[in-house]
């Protein structure tokens, strides 16, 4: 499955590592990513992810991170990974 997530993060120097570690450890592959520092305090992160696992297994873990303010699943698509990544 291909998923698209949008996260709002409290910006800390390590926040990206923190999120990506959970993504990897819980069995998801990042195929596309964009992070934008918003106002010095928050950052938005868009990710396209690929996994055989249900997205809730990831979002519930991400929502537990103290620096994750919001985690939204933008789309769920059963399409080929390359199409989204390109």
């Amino acid at each position, binding site marked *: 499955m291909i998923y698209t997530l949008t996260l709002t993060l409290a910006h800390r120097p*390590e926040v990206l*590592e*923190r999120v990506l*570690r959970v993504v990897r*450890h819980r069995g998801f592959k990042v195929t596309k990513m964009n992070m934008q520092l918003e106002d010095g305090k928050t950052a938005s992160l868009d990710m396209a992810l690929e996994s055989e696992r249900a997205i*809730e*297994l990831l979002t*519930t*873990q991400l*929502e*537990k*991170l*103290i620096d994750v303010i919001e985690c939204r699943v933008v789309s769920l698509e059963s399409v080929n990974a390359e199409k989204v990544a390109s």
Partner: protein
Amino acid sequence: MKQGQMMRGADAVIKVLAAHGVTNIFGYPGGAIMPIYDALYGAPVEHLLSRHEQGAAFAALGYARASGKTGVCFATSGPGATNLVTSLADALLDSVPLVAITGQVSTAVIGTDAFQEIDVLGLSLSCTKHSFMVTEMDELIPTLYKAFEVAASGRPGPVLVDIPKDIQIGMLEYKTPLQERSSEPEFDEERVDAALSLLRQAKQPMLYVGGGVGMASAVDQLRAFIDATGVPSVATLKGLGSIANDSPGYLGMLGMHGSKAANIAVQECDLLIVVGARFDDRVTGRLASFAEHAKVIHLDIDSAELGKLRLPDVAIAGDLRQILPALCTSLEIAPWQDEVAQLKREHSWNYDRPGELIFAPAMLNRLADKLPEDSVVCCDVGQHQMWVAQHMWFRKPEDHLSSAGLGTMGFGLPAAIGAKVSRPDATVVAVSGDGSFMMNVQELTTIKRRKLPVKILLIDNQKLGMVKQWQQLFFEERYSETDLSDNPDFVTMASAFDIPGRTITTTDQVEAALDHLVNCEGPYLLHVRIDDAHNVWPLVPPGASNRDMMEEMDKQT
């Protein structure tokens, strides 16, 4: 606290700890944390010097688990911090509130491979609930307050605060930060109705209780639920002590080394009520066949656990102290209660063993009966740990400390030190094996230093017993690196730390030796040689269903 007072960052650290009611710290000094140790000098906070940072953090864990308070430990940068990693991981897997404070090299040299510099924040990401590195003076106090709040709230866990040396020696104005009040978790009333409906429809309900009940201080509410519903029950390793041992439908521990009655009852139930537990693989055996005909009600503070491994029919995230009373209802399940009682009778433990050699399960069962009401038993990891879980009984979950999720050998001795510090009036027994004991044996010095009356029951089969058991059963008896027949003389070793002790080898010595261990003043080591042929039974083989338990096949000697 006098607001606005100017002080060093290091002094502010000690003052924040005092403001959180911290009376005991476990740690080990070193270069990058010297200003904090300087601030500690003469401060009204007691510091217990361990002899390895892992021992310090395990002692803080034992302190926290035996008392319900947040444990605190200190370590320096580099190797001091890396030595904490195992204990932090242990606290994460077992949801223990812990605040670890590490010194770091000064901010100006971070990233230059300075002496004793390692990226501790990076290391902490996978072994803490949350972590911080303080880089601005005005962040120090709010960060420490946040660390205590995160460690103890929701599902508890370890929090690391890395403090560079320049932040420790820099000056700041002491101000108590405005505290964010964490909102009380609320649960959905409609789901309570759905759960009640499932409960009333069930003919064969079972209660599966985990460590979350003790962590939530919900033991009273759980017992009231059992009294109201009459639902038979089982517990996980961390759940032991939550259910009264004489509760009629209580079948003990379930899972890989659970009782046969517990596993059969769970396999046969039509409704599984999961409270503060997480379908760990050591509990479920083959997940697909675990309680396969049962509907599931899952209650937990951590919503990420709901549906992680088994989709529940009704899931309620929230405070167990509020949810459990809402589910109290009377049920008509007398035939099932009778069936469970029959299972309990059929599969009760048999402690009769011919011969002179000591049978550890029988000895541990006798120890449980001899311990006074206020007691704590701390385990290491391996065969003795499972025998403790199977054959001892506990009044409260905080009376049984065992490294459950991470399964860390070396946990028991330092955890017992921490437990004794937090509950000085309790009888504290560290039950260890000859493999595990050597993993943090340096902490005997900590016992000596404080003359802590920790009792050590060392069960010795001159083997890494649990690994040997698996080699015997699943690796064609190829005993690779599990022979420990060259163990040191444990009693002589203990005497070097001013800890008296003795060795026993035969069954007729057990009663008097246990009486002495429990009743003597001061620390003591009882070294018990057992038959190395004894294994832990029953056993669910790896990958099998809990229905297919292997029965005892030890040769009688």
